[in-house]
């Protein structure tokens, strides 16, 4: 006998696509932390990560009526998150051209929560990586995605995923050895 355990994700997607806010709220609740963490990994700022996550879910709400699930919803969300975060990085570069400061952004007051010496060094080192290597690394280490999933999210070949991860880890090791 099967127990009725609330709506499936597919049902929630259909309801949200038809304009049901309650269903959408449940989807947001499920994916909020993943989107925020990924955005933070790419931007290194809690405030910007919150803004990007808001923008991501607005895009998802608008895009749901035309969403055709070819992969998983999570992969679609990760893709929108990475693209939106990279757009934000690009805008940051336009605002402060040729400024090295963005590699180590000033912490916002609330970010002192995160400033634990070694961890903050690691975060700064991650932010010093090129954004495409950083995206692969964050999806692997923060989100535990497989190489195949990372390739689907970033829309790059499997071999490129491996070389970006390898590059990111080697560079990170160097950076951390310099600071410690």
């Amino acid at each position, binding site marked *: 006998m099967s127990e009725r355990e609330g709506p499936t994700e597919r049902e929630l997607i259909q309801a949200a696509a038809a304009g049901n806010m309650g269903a959408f709220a449940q989807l947001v609740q499920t994916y909020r932390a993943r989107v925020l963490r990924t955005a933070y990994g790419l931007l290194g700022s809690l405030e910007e990560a919150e803004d990007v996550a808001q923008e991501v879910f*607005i895009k998802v709400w608008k895009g749901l009526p035309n969403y055709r699930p070819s992969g998983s919803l999570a992969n679609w969300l990760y893709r929108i998150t990475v693209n939106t975060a990279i757009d934000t990085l690009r805008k940051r570069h336009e605002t402060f051209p040729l400024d090295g400061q963005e590699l180590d952004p000033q912490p916002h007051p609330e970010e002192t929560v995160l400033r634990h010496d070694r961890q903050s060094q690691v975060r700064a080192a991650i932010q010093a990586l090129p954004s495409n290597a950083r995206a692969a690394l964050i999806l692997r280490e923060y989100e535990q995605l497989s190489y195949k999933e990372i390739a689907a999210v970033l829309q790059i070949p499997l071999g490129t995923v491996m070389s970006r991860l*390898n590059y990111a880890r080697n560079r990170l090791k160097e950076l951390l050895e310099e600071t410690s």
Partner: protein
Amino acid sequence: MEHPNDLILQMHIDGELDEEARQRLQAHLTHCATCRERLRGWELLSQTIQASAPPEEAFSRSGIFWARLAGKLPQKPPSPWPWAPYLPPILLGLAAICLDVLLTLAFGLSTLAWLGFLPSFGSTFYHWLEGSPFKSLFSLFIPQGIPGPWSQLIASPGTMGMVLALVFFGGGLLVVTVLYLSWALCWTRLDRSAQKGGG
């Protein structure tokens, strides 16, 4: 056996090696302390990165996040055709304009007929009535139901045209007014809902 490269060690940590490659690596690691040390180094790095992920408490609480988001979501997903909600007032307005044009034309023509510039609308109507089932009803009504001078006046074909045109025009004007009013109501409701959605 040759030492495995860093990529192989990282793939092992990520669980991406196939069974055969994994067993080959394990066999190598059992007798190579250098590679065990290298593997340990990459594992440590992986753990360090994972530990740097912000905890969920670092972000705003779920309820606050949703409250901020819900305020920015458009009420309904965008309609496939953005002008669809404006269709009823536009169609009503068009219907009223068409009726208005027809009425003006009818009134103008019957006035011209009354002045004698055109064949009488009234007599044309009378000729049509003679061959229609309304004839008996009409002849019953006009000579007996209306007192002398009025019945004479109405029975004269030219005046008849004028009276019919006036009735047609008056009734039509009422319909046009109702249509315009509904159009205006539809339009302002749309405007109000747009303001509510935007603010």
